[in-house]
């Protein structure tokens, strides 16, 4: 399964939330693939700059680029164009719309998030959404 992981997934994984640990095991066993937007990386780096721990963040992102079953996707022209439609059509804020368009363009089977803005029928009609608690 190809899973779109929003920023909240990683925060929950850092807390060892059972669902995220389960998915991590599935990535290890080659069953799941994690798609991450570069916007999550931007949010993550902002957090690390505040903590003055950017080096560890850069190591993490570097390792994520080298391992199979995880992909950090940039905002392409196709994604930018699609995000504008989702922003208008689904009333999503720009950042959420870009992340959503990224997951759809990658063909994700599931969106994992802690953000309730994705928990709306019009979004779920396009991709199953699982809210992490």
């Amino acid at each position, binding site marked *: *399964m*190809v899973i779109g992981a929003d*920023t*909240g997934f*990683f*925060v929950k*994984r*850092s*807390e*060892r939330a059972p669902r995220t640990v389960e998915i*991590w095991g599935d*990535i*290890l066993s*080659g*069953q*799941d*693939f994690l*798609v991450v937007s570069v916007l999550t990386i931007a*949010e*993550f780096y*902002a*957090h*690390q700059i505040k903590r003055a*721990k950017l080096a*560890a*963040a850069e*190591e*993490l992102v570097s*390792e*994520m*680029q*080298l*391992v*199979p*079953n*995880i*992909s950090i996707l*940039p905002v392409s022209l196709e994604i930018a164009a699609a995000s504008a439609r989702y922003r208008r059509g689904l009333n999503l*804020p*720009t*950042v*959420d719309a870009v992340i959503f368009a990224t997951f759809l363009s*990658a*063909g994700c089977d599931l969106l994992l998030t*802690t*953000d309730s803005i994705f928990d709306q029928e019009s979004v779920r009609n396009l991709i199953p959404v699982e809210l992490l608690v």
Partner: protein
Amino acid sequence: MVATFVKVKADENGDVQIPTTVWRKLGVQPNQEVEVLVTPLRVNKPVTPVKLTDEDRARLHRIGELIEETFAGMDMEYVREGRRDRWL
């Protein structure tokens, strides 16, 4: 020396070749041996799960440790506020 951006594609063995079109920029002659320092800017991977090697699994374990170390305590309210800022 001014840096030259070269986009390459690995073959089935993971080997890459520097295109002849940039030889002159790099000052490389045919059959000349050169040392290249490589830093991948972005690796395009197929978006499909694959069976991992032991090296990959070790790397993924390290990623898990780094996530626990770095994402802990991240202020999601700050993230949400940032996302709700109206721009454009």
